């Protein structure tokens, strides 16, 4: 049962929207020392690629952490449009 976060997300049901519900202005991320997004997101949607923070909205389970946990405040958080996003079968 020691499965990776990618495998875990494979168990979750999504209706993927083609519109991003979370927008990250990563131009300020290079000057951010903490990069706390790499730790707080329970689905590992924030990754560091060649020194740049990248956010992937697909696979986001809308927990809300990034809305207020980014120290630079560059995460523009909204929920997916109605009917889209995660839908839990157990919850």
């Amino acid at each position: 049962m020691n499965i990776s976060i990618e495998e875990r997300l494979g168990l979750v049901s999504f209706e993927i929207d083609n519109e991003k519900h979370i927008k990250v202005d990563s131009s300020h991320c290079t000057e951010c020392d903490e990069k706390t997004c790499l730790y707080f997101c329970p689905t590992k949607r924030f990754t560091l690629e060649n020194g740049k923070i990248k956010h992937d909205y697909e696979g986001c389970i809308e927990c809300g952490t990034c809305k207020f946990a980014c120290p630079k405040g560059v995460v523009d958080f909204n929920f997916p449009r109605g009917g889209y996003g995660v839908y839990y079968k157990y919850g």
Partner: protein
Amino acid sequence: MSEKFDIIIVGSGPAGSAAAYSLAKMRFNVLMVERGKYPGAKNVMGGRMYAYALNRLIPQFWKEAPVERKVVREKLTIQSEKASFTLDFMDEELREPPNSFTILRARFDPWFANKAVEAGATLVTGIRVDDLMWENKKVTGIIAGTDKIETNVVIAADGAVSLMAEKARLKKFDVKLFALGMKEIIELPEKTIEERFNLASGEGAAQLFVGNCTKEIPGGGFIYTNKTSLSVGIVIYIDKLIEKKIESHEIIREFNTNPEVARLIEGGKILEYSAHVIPEASRSELFTDGLLVAGDAGGLVVNSGLTLRGMDMAIASGVAAAETVKRAAEKNDFSKESLSYYEELLKRDFVLQDKKTFEKASEFLQNERLYTLYPEFVCRLFHRLTLVKGPKKRAFDELLEVSKGKRIQMCVDMLKAMRSI
């Protein structure tokens, strides 16, 4: 949608459904708007609801509601790095009347929302409310996409990340005030669950874990028994997680491999992973002109250390919101002053009383010693009491030995505990 509604409720979780059900029974024309494909689609909790509040609204609801198991066994496991100490409390009196039930939200929430619909409320799903409508600083309706719907009063029951309360400037989000819960549903045969947790058929257990499982981060682990699955998870304070620089999802992954946990979930299959923030210490203003805030949206959760409550408070606040609307409608006055009756009702009921009783609990529970020093101390003491290896000491002398150099700190923390939890 051209129909005029007396009340619009944003969100069809327990707060929204409790309000919608109560208002529909009072013969109001109620609209409940849900952004998920169905009620409960977006909702996460550890897994247990205390029965008191819903039983007041729908007596003996468990006879018809999709509850999982009635909790009759309460366990608390204190873990150090190498040892663990479990308190196992079994109480005949928790059986009747039932104290709490384990629940799966994607099953329970649709049932509750449907009770409101049966009572006469209108439910629309798959619609995200984008904003509130305002006129002369009073909320006059909601905006969803290109639709604008007017109403007398809006009830924001849109959960822990309440964008409605934020838009009404009733709530500010601060990372220090929130915890993060992560959970997995692990499938196991009914009989296996009953054997492993020593349960009679249909009865359930709740087990909390404190100590090593959260890697020195304030928080804890939990296991709740469902009918044919376990809800297994971790709750941690987000700002402390960030300080430790540990990836959140790694903590729940390691929790599964913890020897005490591994034996309980052995042979099981993970069916689903979920996560959500919990407004542990976050509170919002609960009313303004034309708007009431209920449940998690208002930060109406209470963690006493042993009882972790949200759903019962959501339901009680939803009912209080309905009572407030009824009174406001009689006077045809939906002003802030008129709606302040809501807070009065919550103060009279357990909701704001319990919030006040445990207002210092969150600060106390963020003390790192609770998750490091004390679990180590308890396990060390029992290690010494149980081990036979050369001459033994009396229990009290072992206690003095293990607590050496820590006693003043322990007394201070004990006093703080008495004042907060």
